[in-house]
């Protein structure tokens, strides 16, 4: 029954099934209700697994579950790598 789906944010399979039971069946809503995919890997590990679980639990095709909008940057980057020395005001 229970297993970790999102390692970054500690979201379990049970958390996903509870969200579905509450009526949240698309991946964008489930991301926001459970925290899924909001950690350092930004869903690269957990979202495909979650889609499978949601599809099975709701009887939807995985395409109907959808995919979270990928957000830049691709990998976490330090603010100092982005900051200008001279601050424009």
């Amino acid at each position, binding site marked *: 029954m229970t297993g970790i789906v999102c390692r970054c944010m500690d979201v379990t399979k049970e958390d996903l099934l509870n969200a579905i039971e509450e009526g949240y069946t698309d991946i964008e*809503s489930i991301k*926001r209700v459970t925290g899924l995919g*909001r950690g350092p890997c930004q869903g690269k590990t957990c979202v495909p697994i979650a889609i499978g679980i949601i599809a099975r639990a709701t009887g939807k095709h995985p395409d109907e579950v959808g995919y979270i909008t990928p957000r830049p940057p691709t990998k*976490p*980057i330090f*603010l100092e*790598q*982005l*900051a*200008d020395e001279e601050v424009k005001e």
Partner: protein
Amino acid sequence: MRDRAKLVIIGGGVSGLGTAYHLAKSGFTDIVLIERGYFGSGATGRCGGGIRQQFSEEYNIILARESVRMFEKMSEELNQDIGFRQGGYLILAHTEEEAEHLRENVRLQNSLDVPSRYMDPSEALDIVPHLNIEGLSAAAYCPTDGVSQPFLVVKGYVDTLKKMGVELHDHTEVKGIKVENGEIKKVITDKGDIETNMVLNAAGAWSAKIAEMAGVEMPNKPYRHEILATEHMKPWLRPMIISFHTGIYFSQSHDGEIVGGIGDPDEPSSFRIDSSLEFLERFASVAVRYIPVMKKLKVLRQWAGLYDVTPDARPILGPVDELPGLIQANGYSGHGFMIHPMVTKLLAEYIIDGKTSIDIEPLNLRRFKTGEIIQEANVVG
């Protein structure tokens, strides 16, 4: 979907959901709420979650003050932890003129029972020890300002409204509004039509388009605002840091990420919500100038949302003179989430009683025709 309702609410962000909640609490549940995406998919779910009472204009201060009192009780009321954290807002000024402006604001806020205080930059170090005060002229701090998690607020409303028997439809799009002889007759959606005489226009940046469907012209314009979140950390930053000089704001959410944005005065009006590297660079440059240790902080993700901006940066609330069945709940100009509790309570009062406990007439759409406009100055971006 029902084919008839006393009220159709267009928009499933905090403006529409909050109004539905206050109506249902008073026993008014003959409502259908329509949301084009998922609940909170517009500005609500994209905003920084900041809750500030430090405005320059009396009306905004009162709405924000009353809203803070409601946020304080919201987790209990909605039976949902909304991640509300009162770490205050620290406003940073750079010039003498800005310092004088802050001093005047604090005087007005204090006269309205908002406990903000004006201080020298060195005093701000007691609140944020990591702050670099070089080049700052003054600061203002209000300890009861704070942040909350917009998505948890949305979840609280959605779950509560479903229990109260209010019909909510996400992933449903409004295609038209039928008006005959100055009266609303019907809302047409892609999932069916709903006969109604009353529509609440809570469609955020798309409100002017919704109003246009009913033949009503509005001055609202959409503007992209970009925002980012960093990796999660233990709590170290108590207040929201904000500066009207640089246009930046950032705070630490209750789950530990820094969430922040920076306005771009050159951003043209549009419906685009894509992300730019230029935004990351501008945010990073200003953030590390204020708090140098943030250099070693990593950005996890960036996104954008739309401000629904009016010519005076104040919301448009209440009925339209030429079409009284169309009630406006939009134009929040970047401050919708923070003032929504009181605003939506007032809108519910208007819908039920035709009158409100705080006068909302000054925020009617007609002000742009009569020219009675008071500008809100404390706006980011």
